[in-house]
């Protein structure tokens, strides 16, 4: 594989793998971001095919290899770049990282801005500069969406109480 291919293939296939995965659900609408201000994909969570205002950001990384730390015994964590840290440190909604090995199509996911239970820290997201990765498949994505919905439900309840 020449250098030129290495420049374009990981991003093109990584983005496509992410879009195909998230659009298997029929309750997701997506925006592809062309700027460098936010996540690569902005997912709108629908209910009954209607918008809810609930957002989930997805930052995408494509690679010709598995994540470099895959075989470490205590799991795998990747480091965000300085630009990514600046973009997400104060993000007000959940954002996750999708990492794809574009040769095998294996996917991994980690929280960049993790939605936390109300009891721990209030209704909040916690920023992770080194997101821990775990395998990503349809079931994992279902659990991500479920968790994000639960976070928005909790936030609504907290707002009503205030």
């Amino acid at each position, binding site marked *: 594989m020449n250098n030129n291919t290495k420049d374009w293939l990981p991003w*093109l296939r990584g983005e*496509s793998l992410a879009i195909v995965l998230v659009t298997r659900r029929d309750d997701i*609408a997506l925006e*592809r971001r062309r700027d460098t201000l936010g996540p690569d994909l902005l997912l709108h969570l629908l209910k009954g*095919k209607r918008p809810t205002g609930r957002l989930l950001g997805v930052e995408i990384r494509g690679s010709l290899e598995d994540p470099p730390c895959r075989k470490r015994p205590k799991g795998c964590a990747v480091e965000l770049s300085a630009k990514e840290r600046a973009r997400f440190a104060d993000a007000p909604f959940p954002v996750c990282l999708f990492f794809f090995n574009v040769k095998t199509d294996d996917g991994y996911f980690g929280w960049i801005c993790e939605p936390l239970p109300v009891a721990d820290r209030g209704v909040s997201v916690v920023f992770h500069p080194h997101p821990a990765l775990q395998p990503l498949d349809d079931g994992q994505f279902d659990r991500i969406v479920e968790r994000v919905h639960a976070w928005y439900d909790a936030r609504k309840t907290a707002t009503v109480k205030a």
Partner: protein
Amino acid sequence: MLNDICGERGESIVKLRLTEVQHDGRPLFRPHFFGDKWPDLDFFVRLEGGGPQTSFFLVQVRSTRRGTTRDGRLRVAFKREAVIRLASFAVPVYFIGVDAIEERAYIVALADRTTGFSSITTAFPLDAVNRQALWEEVRDFWIRQDTFSKSVFFDPTWVRG
């Protein structure tokens, strides 16, 4: 909103099928998406490793969640006017239909086509064998610099114009 998602999904499936890495560790094609400003065409696709000249073909994509007809044809429609516009290009032009549920893509050549259609054959899935045949067909076209009227990807039920 969901129709747009179906289109987005179809384009991504086509990108994945065209850029699958072959046994030698490289993809055969590099697709460039035209965007919404050119409604009749979706992709300009360059051949990787096609020699010093730029060998390419053009692609229109349609996706469906309606599956196939009773005789196994993919239910994707394309209007006559658009077919004639695309078939008039002096370069290889293909139509790719995507089954958005099964995540499969099927290719047919549009050369000489003069009428619209409501389905396409599923005889040519974008798999490793057909990707290689497509690469060779387009490379041969650019070596010969001839009119594009012969293709192994003609829908057998279409009457040649």
